[in-house]
């Protein structure tokens, strides 16, 4: 009988408590921002949505570093009215994303989201953000399709695969003057999307194709394929964890051609890991070279003791837009129009969005690894 009691007592208590306290509803005031008031509302939050733990965490942390830097800047300027960061750690997994999105939506103090970081989780979470009218600015999801769903809250602080792919192909054709190009992708949405565009644009000069898998480390079969194809240039669509061992093993096998990659590889860890093999790698990126924003570069280095990494600058920019919105007294609802009409220079580019939420005016730049550093070598026009 004891267990019955154990079970019944809390229920009874709960029922009593409910009866005593009654109900609420209807008159709940919306906490946080108050429409067009000039006074910035305090205790507001912005969300950081992406992989912060787990195997995909490094990209998320680079972004988060950028976001935190922007937040520090803001809170220094507004010491009496600080904004806090709420982390929504999806581990990059689409199956965790919807519940986290709901959590962000239910927290009425969250007025904007930086993220979701990956394309997969964006597809899972963005419909909910759209329905709730919560602005999201992704600093890193590049799948072209994301902006074609009619999500009014979707903004992208960087170019998509459709802007970068043709530029990479153009560079390979016109500047590298490649006649035999080999194309490898990593089967990810980002890498394959990009590589397919390059394949299409290069047409007949593609002498071979291969697909590797993320987290693969032994590329001996791909190396053999590249070497035996006689290719003078290799385009790899993917991220730095695979690019570094791939180029290292290619160089070890004596391949001398040009290695061309995209922004997923543009981080210092690529050079740290591939070491000498990384020299001469061409990286395309729809981001303005860092020498344009030396202050950001220096501030980042001072705080994290390393150079800004992939998408750190985009994270900083995305957060800055939202923070300026907060400073201008915007709440969740009015933030949407604020972001839509935003037009200022950020650390990565001119921050302005078109009607689909894409960054307007994307320029793709070429970078080269020289002496262990990624240096800009000009815009790809």
């Amino acid at each position: 009988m004891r267990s019955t009691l154990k079970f019944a007592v809390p229920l009874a208590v709960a029922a009593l408590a409910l009866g005593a306290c009654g109900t609420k509803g209807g008159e709940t005031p919306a906490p946080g921002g108050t429409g067009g008031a000039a006074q910035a509302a305090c205790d507001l939050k912005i969300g950081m949505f992406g992989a912060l733990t787990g195997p995909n965490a490094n990209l998320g942390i680079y972004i988060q570093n950028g976001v935190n830097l922007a937040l520090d800047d803001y809170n220094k300027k507004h010491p009496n009215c600080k904004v806090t960061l709420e982390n929504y750690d999806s581990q990059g997994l689409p199956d965790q994303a919807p519940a986290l999105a709901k959590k962000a939506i239910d927290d009425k103090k969250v007025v904007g989201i930086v993220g979701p970081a990956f394309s997969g989780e964006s597809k899972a979470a963005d419909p909910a953000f759209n329905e709730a009218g919560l602005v999201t600015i992704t600093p890193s999801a590049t799948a072209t399709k994301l902006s074609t769903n009619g999500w009014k809250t979707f903004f992208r602080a960087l170019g998509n695969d459709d802007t970068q792919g043709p530029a990479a192909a153009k560079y390979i054709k016109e500047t590298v003057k490649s006649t035999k190009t080999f194309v490898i992708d990593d089967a990810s949405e980002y890498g394959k999307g990009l590589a397919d565009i390059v394949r299409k644009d290069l047409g007949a000069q593609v002498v071979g194709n291969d697909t590797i898998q993320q987290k693969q480390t032994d590329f001996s079969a791909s190396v053999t394929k590249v070497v035996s194809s006689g290719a003078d240039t290799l385009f790899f669509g993917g991220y730095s964890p695979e690019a570094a061992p791939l180029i290292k093993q290619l160089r070890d096998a004596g391949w001398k051609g040009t290695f061309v990659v995209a922004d997923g590889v543009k981080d210092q860890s690529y050079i740290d890991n591939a070491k000498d093999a990384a020299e001469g790698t061409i990286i395309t990126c729809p981001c303005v070279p860092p020498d344009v924003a030396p202050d950001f570069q220096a501030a980042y280095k001072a705080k994290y003791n390393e150079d800004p990494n992939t998408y750190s600058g985009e994270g900083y920019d995305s957060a800055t837009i939202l923070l300026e919105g907060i400073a201008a007294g915007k709440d969740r609802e009015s933030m949407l129009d604020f972001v839509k009409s935003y037009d200022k220079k950020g650390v990565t580019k001119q921050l302005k969005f078109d009607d689909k939420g894409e960054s307007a005016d994307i320029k793709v730049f070429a970078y080269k690894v020289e002496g262990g550093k990624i240096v800009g070598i000009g815009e790809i026009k």
Partner: protein
Amino acid sequence: MSTSTPATTTTTGENQDARRPGFKERVNGLPRPVKIALWVAFALFLFLLPLLNIPFVTTEGSDFGGVLFTVATYVLVALGLNIVVGYAGLLDLGYVGFYAVGAYTVGVLSAEHASLPWLLSVPIAIGIAMLSGIILGAPTLRVRGDYLAIVTLGFGEIVRLTLVNTQWLGGAQGISDIPKPPGLELFEVPAIDWSSGAPVVDLDTTSTFLKFGITDFVPYYWLALIVIGLVVLFDVLVKNSRVGRAWEATREDEDVAELMGVPTFRFKLLAFALGAAIGGLSGALFATKSGFINPQSFELILSILFIAAVVVGGAGNRWGIIVGAIVVSYFPERFREFADFRVLVFGLALMLLAIFRPQGILPPRRTLRAKKADERQAILEEGEASA
């Protein structure tokens, strides 16, 4: 919500046989109306759980309704895997394969290549998952136990790699816009708000009974609960039938079972097929709720977690594995504040559970008996050795 069975308290000394009545006996001893009332109250409690927002129990870092739905899919998966691992004694490390088959069948049939209604695509998904279980099982179940583990693990990886590399199945982009199930908007249930310290009924936050939207996961949880109820019922019926006894005989000693006239291979295949079907059903529900699937949701690590759920809970005991599934899926969400250390803490917890509850949280009655017999034998042997 887990009730510990007093029967598992380690009784040392002579009167081991005089067991105190277990939870089940005590419940069975109650008069019938009380029993029904208890069950109804319990079911009601489960249904209202996401709206009660009980402090401490409710997850802070993620939406509780969404988390509960995830927990429910794990419970469902564990029920299916329990048939394979717990009842038939087959170690399956690739169970995520069937989960993926279920999810992708729904995705392909209702969004990617056709637009079948939900009520039709889910049964087909169950059927195809079952078929894939038979296709995998027919050649491999003849392989010995431990080898089966690696073969099934390979199957799970083959399924995932096929999903990543096949454009027809959406590739890495996955499948979007999977339709919602038809709703039945019957009534609204308000949530409870605890922000003032005491519970208050919050009329602003309500969930509509079985209205399947984008931003409210509670109805999906309710749907999953109903499905779990049906599967548990099915499980009870099968376990207590001739089939259940045949599984038990096969698991304990395959050769003897075969000699006694049990067609062990066929029963193993049946277990595999039923397990696969339930896994497929769970995957189908998952695809329905998320509306978007890609291969990332079907990584090998999930199979490992599924196995962990079953073994941690106590393979063979359906209530045990339900608890195990809750442990494996709920705790990482509840303790999000550990942030970076979540996986580390989870790993430690698994090790501690293994060491301090080696039979699982709620081991099946039979295992307990066997363990007692072992202990008694060990005491006897040691006594002889020291004498």
